[in-house]
């Protein structure tokens, strides 16, 4: 003790329990742990140093490059939002942090407890009006064995942003790395215990829950909180069930009715379909679908521009006797260009006579055509080949594909350059028919052969064609070649064709525009119809609740019915993104103007029944993003469970990306329970909000 300074306190005031609790910060422990255990390249100092070096290098570079701009930019730099450097990256710290973070130390949303017998059916109705059916199935232990005897069922409901905050259950949804905010119709948690040990639901016999929700609409889906994956899992759409009403209400309004005589007391439309199912979440209709198909077809039939001669590509004429090949007559003056992507083409096709040639359109509607060439003979199996008239005819027919000669190419180039109309078409040469190309006696009746159907009929191919037909070796694989070609134009022919194409294109585009306008109109009408349906749905719900209220009954809203195959947390939600947002940096002060450090802040989005939790670091410049068109309220949880509030009026004065110091309206006493918090924040219980919003005169006609 010699080198140590010693201080002696006599009867120091003992530290209060609450003061000790205020110093708890498990997040800081996890951050410290992460910083110690991370490899150097994940440590803050590494990235801090690297970041500083990069920033410094960038600043030097930018300053050197753009010296003048620097002075102006620095003036407004102080107003920009500043980021706080974290010890470890937020994602790394978040990975260790508890997933569910209750806002308050002193209280939470309480569970109701029910005792059921494993293996026996039981119906439970909670004080909140939710109905739970426990099926006549045994609960299971983790090892799959059946639970016998009494089981404790714990159930709690969270219906408004205050409940969400108090429970600490996250209200954001990550779908394909896109974060959405949950607009909730209601959330519940159900757990099962046997002698303090958690049990499981037998997935074969799920528990049925009809949760009394604060809203009902087809836009809501069901989600299950996966606490391992730390995200919500989409599990489908709930079935919407209305409250049982003793007397059948005779409500009819624009074709909608709430019927209690139909099964399950479900909201129905005039066709007797479940209304939730009849309201589509997308604005579409069969008519729109048909129009869209027509539009696609129209787009496919867009005119294609004429192709101009390109000497860099393979070009050729088809040379054939017009008497023998009348079908090729229209193409005798046409120059064809081989599609550059065609793998079947080989210049070897110029060397041989073909017995058949045909031109056919392709499906692409791009001006591309198929040139089919074959060296087959029509085969009549009943008669000997050499004796048939068809065979003789086919043998007589010959066609060649002739590459453009040097002067043809030269002339085409000249015409392309100067637009000179050629007086003469490219020469069409009549080629002499090839004799004894394949001896007729090669094919005898009864010989082995493959019959292939091709362009003009059945074609015979010898089984061993390589021996019989030397052409096959040079033209890759077959006696049948299909080459993709474009008819091309030169000189004024091209100009003329292009002018015609332009006219066609203008007419086509006009048609497309008209079609698009028509579809937009239909979509608008469908959207209006959908909105009207949804409004009608909401009106019916409001009527229902007014009716039940007038009967001096508890609020009887709609129920979201679903099957729970697992114990856990279920949420009826609509994932939304805030459309127009603003981000500000906030520092808080207490009522006396002193600096107030904050670690938990909750943005209540009143018009959406949604909550956005923000976890700060008990420091400064706390970043807050909020929707500018929403009705917002921010509340922060202070030491000793005091609560501070920032109201909408403050939000109204916030400008984009600025720093603000906000004075908190702090509760006079520590908040002790959820109801007290709701009262302080002025948040009506969700059910009362629903009743308050409805038109008082809009009640059931009886």
């Amino acid at each position: 003790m010699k080198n140590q300074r010693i201080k002696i306190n006599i009867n120091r005031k003992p530290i209060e329990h609450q003061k000790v609790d205020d110093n708890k910060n498990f997040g800081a422990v996890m951050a410290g742990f992460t910083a110690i255990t991370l490899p150097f390249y994940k440590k803050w100092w590494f990235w801090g140093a690297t970041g500083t070096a990069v920033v410094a290098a960038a600043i030097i570079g930018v300053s050197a490059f753009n010296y003048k701009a620097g002075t102006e930019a620095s003036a407004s730099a102080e107003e920009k939002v500043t980021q706080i450097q974290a010890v470890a990256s937020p994602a790394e710290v978040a990975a260790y942090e508890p997933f569910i973070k209750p806002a308050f130390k002193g209280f939470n949303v309480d569970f109701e407890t029910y005792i059921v017998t494993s293996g026996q059916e039981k119906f439970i109705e909670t004080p909140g009006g939710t109905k739970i059916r426990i099926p006549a199935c045994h609960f299971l232990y983790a090892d799959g064995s059946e639970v016998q005897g009494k089981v404790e069922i714990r159930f709690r409901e969270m219906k408004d942003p205050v409940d969400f905050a108090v429970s600490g259950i996250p209200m954001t949804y990550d779908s394909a790395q896109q974060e959405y905010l949950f607009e909730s119709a209601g959330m519940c948690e159900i757990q099962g215990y046997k002698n303090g040990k958690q049990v499981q639901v037998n997935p074969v016999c799920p528990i049925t829950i009809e949760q009394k929700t604060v809203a009902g609409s087809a836009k809501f889906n069901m989600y299950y909180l996966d606490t391992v994956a730390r995200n919500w899992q989409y599990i489908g759409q709930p079935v919407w069930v209305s409250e049982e009403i003793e007397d059948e209400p005779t409500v009819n309004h624009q074709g909608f009715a709430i019927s209690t005589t139909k099964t399950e007391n479900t909201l129905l439309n005039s066709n007797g379909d479940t209304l939730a199912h009849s309201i589509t979440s997308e604005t579409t209709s069969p008519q729109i679908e048909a129009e869209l198909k027509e539009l696609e077809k129209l787009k496919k039939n867009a005119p294609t521009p004429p192709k101009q001669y390109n000497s860099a590509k393979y070009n050729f004429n088809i040379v054939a006797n017009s008497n023998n090949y009348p079908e090729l007559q229209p193409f005798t003056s046409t120059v064809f260009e081989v599609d550059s992507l065609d793998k079947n083409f080989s210049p070897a096709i110029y060397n041989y006579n073909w017995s058949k040639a045909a031109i056919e359109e392709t499906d692409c509607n791009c001006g591309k055509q198929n040139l089919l060439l074959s060296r087959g003979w029509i085969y009549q199996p009943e008669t000997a080949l050499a004796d048939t008239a068809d065979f003789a005819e086919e043998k007589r027919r010959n066609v060649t594909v002739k590459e453009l000669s040097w002067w043809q190419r030269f002339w085409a180039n000249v015409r392309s350059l100067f637009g000179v109309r050629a007086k003469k078409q490219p020469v069409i040469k009549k080629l002499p028919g090839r004799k004894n190309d394949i001896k007729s006696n090669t094919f005898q009746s009864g010989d082995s052969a493959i019959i292939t159907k091709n362009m003009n009929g059945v074609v015979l191919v010898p089984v061993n064609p390589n021996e019989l037909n030397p052409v096959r070796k040079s033209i890759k694989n077959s006696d049948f070649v299909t080459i993709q070609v474009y008819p091309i134009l030169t000189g004024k022919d091209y100009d003329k064709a292009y002018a015609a194409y332009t006219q066609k294109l203008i007419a086509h585009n006009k048609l497309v525009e008209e079609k698009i306008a028509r579809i937009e109109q239909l979509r608008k009408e469908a959207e209006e119809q959908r909105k009207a349906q949804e409004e009608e749905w909401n009106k019916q719900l409001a009527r229902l609740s007014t009716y039940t209220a007038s009967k001096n009954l508890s609020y009887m809203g709609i129920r979201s019915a679903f099957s729970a195959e697992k114990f856990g947390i279920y949420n009826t939600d609509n994932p939304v993104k805030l459309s127009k947002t603003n981000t500000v940096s906030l520092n808080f002060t207490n009522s006396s103007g002193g600096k107030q450090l904050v670690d938990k802040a909750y943005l209540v989005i009143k018009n959406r029944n949604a909550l956005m939790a923000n976890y700060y670091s008990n420091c400064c410049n706390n970043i807050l993003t909020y929707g500018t068109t929403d009705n917002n309220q921010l509340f922060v949880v202070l030491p000793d469970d005091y609560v501070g509030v920032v109201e909408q009026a403050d939000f109204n004065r916030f400008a984009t990306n600025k720093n603000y110091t906000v004075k908190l309206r702090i509760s006079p006493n520590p908040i002790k329970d959820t109801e007290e918090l709701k009262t302080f924040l002025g948040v009506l219980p969700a059910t009362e909000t629903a009743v308050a919003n409805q038109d008082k005169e809009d009640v059931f006609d009886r």
Partner: protein
Amino acid sequence: MKQSALLSFVEPLLKLRMNPSPGYNVPPLHLQGEKELIDAAKKRPAAFEPLYEKYFDPIFRFVYQRLDDVDTAKDITQQVFINALVNIKKYEYRGFPFSSWLYRIAINELNKWFNSRKADRTINIETEGLDDLIDEMATDRYEEYYDELATALANLEPESLLLIEMRFFEKRSFKEIGEILDITENNAKVRLYRLLDRIKTVLKEA
């Protein structure tokens, strides 16, 4: 018959001798849940939170008892839990509560802070505890000993001071003191009474 009767009496004893009670190395009931929590924290650091929640208060008070500053106590306590979390894989259950391990980390951490002079050693004396101490030394002259006693305590070695603090100002049992200091209960008693004799001698000389 006599032989079989004898065997039936002896056999269970023999079995007992060969197979000691299966609960021999099993933590007592009140610590069983704690062992599960420790095992969970070894696998997943986030699972350490229940242990943190359970022991934050006693560790914080233990640290604060030796300091004069809440903020420093907070920092040291945080460091204690970070160290515990970093080293939890090395922790072995030896029949003592997990808290005793945390207290030992806290003592080391406090010593580090005192040695680096980042914090002043403070002795927070409650007169009630001081009275108990004087009682133990079998004297009835209470008030006049306060100053001398305080001075004597300030001159003690850190380990001795820790013993006095835990016994008289924190009202810990000898069993608990033994667990924290990793010594037996008897050893804790012997050390304390020797220490009291020493203090008594010092006071007489004064």
